């Protein structure tokens, strides 16, 4: 006997609004259908109404955790339109903040992954140690998560020598802890049985379905925008592209942990080789780039991020397009969540498989206008609400 179970839009591990309808038979998942149409916030349209400087702060709010990547992508795009080169120091500072926020994102994800397989202690420890990198971000940029650091023409603050010392100390601590977490993940048998051979995405499928980021690298495809299409100071700072070839959730965890270690080395290198000079070129408040179009790519913590801008010569973008990594990963997620042949997905594996792509639904849906003026509001009884939700659930066939 098979029946449908809904995961989302409200679920303990995926607080993000997304509905996954699973057709299950006992413990086995047969089929899945993913629906993301819950939070379209209108950012692409909203950016068309804001001038270029104000757009930075809206682009920052596409996603909370990868805000550094989004602003970096945005400002690069505008700089490409303006044909302006930023000072070398700014490039290094951008890299430092981007990599710090990548450490933050990956550690946050590691904690969530531990939570998804029910490893509460690891979850608590990872999140405790993540505070350290948030402190570093706070010190450099002035806020814990939303950094507001990148701006058109450079960055907004400089790193002083005292800060540099503190960053190095914090990185030492983070490196020690990350190595410990890696040991736990690699050696704790309950973690191994929950992650190995779970959520398999073959390299061929990963390319076919255009997976991005750590998901792609865990399927042994060596693709990283930082290496293939270097931006900021990535062409000068050496690093390894981490790949693993087991193609499962375990590989995705290890890819992310190793990337954290790699990020730490990158930040150390860039602190050592930080060029002196200006960290920002001043631009006027109202920017009017020449008509044209530009594509900018950044390796966000979740994968390859693409922004496209079309300018018509005015002070606002004519069209701004954002392609976030989670959208690109949805087809491959659906693939991972479907049983086929010998590969069986259990209900118990749903959270960790879906979690292993590091989903971020607020990035994925982006346009919705709340009808303020009509002020549509009404009161529903309990039964009406139940009826409505059931109808809604049935409608997704």
């Amino acid at each position, binding site marked *: 006997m098979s029946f449908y179970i809904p995961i989302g839009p409200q679920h303990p591990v995926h607080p993000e609004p997304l509905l996954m309808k699973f057709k299950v038979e006992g413990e086995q998942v047969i089929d899945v259908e993913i629906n993301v149409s819950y939070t379209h916030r209108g950012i692409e349209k909203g950016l068309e109404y804001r001038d270029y400087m104000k757009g930075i*702060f809206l682009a920052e709010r596409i996603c909370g955790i990868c805000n550094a990547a989004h602003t970096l992508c945005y400002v690069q795009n505008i700089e490409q339109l303006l044909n302006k080169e930023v000072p070398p120091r700014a490039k290094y500072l951008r890299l430092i903040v981007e990599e710090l926020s990548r450490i933050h994102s990956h550690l946050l994800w590691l904690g969530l992954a531990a939570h998804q397989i029910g490893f509460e202690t690891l979850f608590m420890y990872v999140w405790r140690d993540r505070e350290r990198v948030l402190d570093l971000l*706070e010190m450099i940029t*002035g806020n814990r998560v939303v950094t507001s650091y990148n701006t058109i023409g450079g960055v907004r603050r400089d790193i002083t020598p005292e800060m540099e010392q503190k960053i190095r100390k914090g990185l030492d601590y983070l490196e020690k802890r990350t190595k410990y977490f890696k040991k736990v993940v690699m050696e*704790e048998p309950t973690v191994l049985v929950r992650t190995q051979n779970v959520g398999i995405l073959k390299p061929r499928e990963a390319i076919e379905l255009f997976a991005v980021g750590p998901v792609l690298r865990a399927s042994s495809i060596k693709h990283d925008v930082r290496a293939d299409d270097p931006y900021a100071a990535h062409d000068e700072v050496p690093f390894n592209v981490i790949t693993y070839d087991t193609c499962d959730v375990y590989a995705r965890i290890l890819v992310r942990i190793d990337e954290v270690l790699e990020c730490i080395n990158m930040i150390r290198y860039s602190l050592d080789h930080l060029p002196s000079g200006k960290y920002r070129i001043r631009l006027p408040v109202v920017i009017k780039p020449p008509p044209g179009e530009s594509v900018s790519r950044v390796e966000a913590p979740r994968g390859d991020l693409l922004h496209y801008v079309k300018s018509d010569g005015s002070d606002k973008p004519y069209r701004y397009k954002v392609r976030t990594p989670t959208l690109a990963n949805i087809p491959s997620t659906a693939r991972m969540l479907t049983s086929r042949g010998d590969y069986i997905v259990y209900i118990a594996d749903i959270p960790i498989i879906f979690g292993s792509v590091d989903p971020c639904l607020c990035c994925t849906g982006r346009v919705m206008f709340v009808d303020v003026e009509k002020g549509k509001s009404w009161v529903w009884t309990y039964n009406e609400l139940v009826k409505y939700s059931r109808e809604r659930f049935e409608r997704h066939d």
Partner: protein
Amino acid sequence: MPKPGLMIGEVYKNLLSKRATILYPFKERELVHLPEGFRGRIVFNRDKCIGCQMCFRVCPARAIEIIEDEKGKRPIFFMYRCIYCATCAEYCPVKAIELSTNFENIAFDKKTLLVK
């Protein structure tokens, strides 16, 4: 090589160490360290302000309004709309706007979140 119960040493070590939680809102407020340059509640210096309206123009959140008082034009700040980006402080030509380290901008009354 799998080792069951690998974390047992770590968890017992944490039994003896001090808790990581700061009992923030009611006790131990002094343990909350904020670095210099933290972007918190806006502090506005009326004497320095020259009424150039730059902050109004650059504010991405429309949290600033320009009103007139006895000395001329001046901004008021609606902290409940503020996104703490510090753009106004950056563009102010006379440094009349500063961001303090006060991050507790929660209130029952909107009027208390008005910076004049």
